[in-house]
């Protein structure tokens, strides 16, 4: 515990920032089941827009007005055939606006938040 805290304190004092920023486009399509969506994530480097292949990405979601009450347990995104493309299936609790949180663990550490309005099919 003490070692972990010391590491945090040292990190807090360390000036240089690490890593590069990532960007993502997310497109979620409804499945035949209510409130279940298949999401397609295109992960790129923010500066160069080059696709980021082989990433470890998980996708969670929160309702902004109820951040800890309505949330989706994070699911691991699976790589699709094309480089930089990933898919994840989300099971929501209700329709409305959700903040999707893409947690990228590798090749760089980053968190990308995308807001998507999931509406009931007419």
């Amino acid at each position, binding site marked *: 515990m003490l070692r972990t805290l010391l590491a945090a304190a040292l*990190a807090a004092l360390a000036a240089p920032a690490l890593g590069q920023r990532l960007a993502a486009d997310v497109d979620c399509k409804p499945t035949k089941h209510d409130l279940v969506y298949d999401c397609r994530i295109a992960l790129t480097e923010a500066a160069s827009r080059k696709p980021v292949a082989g990433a470890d990405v998980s996708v969670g979601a929160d309702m902004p007005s109820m951040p800890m*009450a309505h949330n989706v347990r994070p699911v691991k995104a699976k790589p699709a055939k094309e480089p930089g493309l990933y898919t994840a299936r989300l099971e929501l609790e209700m329709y409305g606006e959700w903040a999707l949180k893409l947690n990228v663990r590798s090749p760089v550490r980053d968190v990308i938040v995308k807001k998507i309005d999931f509406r009931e099919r007419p």
Partner: protein
Amino acid sequence: MDEYALGVLTNVGLFSFLALSAYLLLVAGEMSFGQQAFFGVGAYAAGIGTAMWGWPLPVAALAAMALGAAAAWLVGLPTLRLRGLYFAMATLAAAEMFRILFELFHYQRTIDGELVGPDGTQGFRGIRWVLERGIEQETFLAAVWALVLLVLGAFALVERTRLGATLRMVGEDPELAAVLGVNVARVKLGVAAAAGALAALGGALYAHHNTYVEPRNFDIMLGVHSLAYALIGGLGTALGPLLGVALDIGLLESTRVFQGYRMIVFGGLVALLLIVRPRGLLDELTVNRVAAALRRRRTA
């Protein structure tokens, strides 16, 4: 530990600051529905400090606490003239004013080719200080809980002092406290400022855990939960609000089987609990009984 468990434990720690903030006011006899406003002030202030001005998080968190205390003091000046339900309503109105101010707040800068900063209803993205320093989730969790323990230690110390006794007296019988020479208004204003600083610290850490905040994060729902944490956990000890947060988030997580209806199940369980234990699980009577039992065991 998996990412999900880490997230839940971090959230319990983060919302504990909000719960302790509501508890502090409850001990001083005031029920606030507005502590989420100072949580939001802390989130925005610390986010601006690190993401836009390049401050280290500890400095930004301290500045956020100062701002949270100042905001709570300003809100307390007119609202603490009111009593009971009127005070509760006034704090709720003040919190909504803050939320609307966050919605109107636009202040962005281009950093590394990306616009960073509060953008009204679109929220504030890119609070990446923790990520950019390569601080792992486990380390952040440990830091959050170390701060929670530090605050709990401070509460335990204050409870044993004259100030602690004064706070309880002001909360339970303000007229008697005034007769005994306590400046009740000043004590309550001080408590409001301290509670604001605590909530702001929670908000500062929340923004850096989440990397993104938006005005709707700080609406009435969070205010109701913050009060519920303290009321469920109990008003007898500062451990009460922590128990309240753990139960609240634990109940919400364990009722996932009810899907979208779990808030209804959760609300029913909370109502039932408060009927059986109106001053929470760790109320004053329970705490006194446990303390007496411990004393007896020590002397035996």
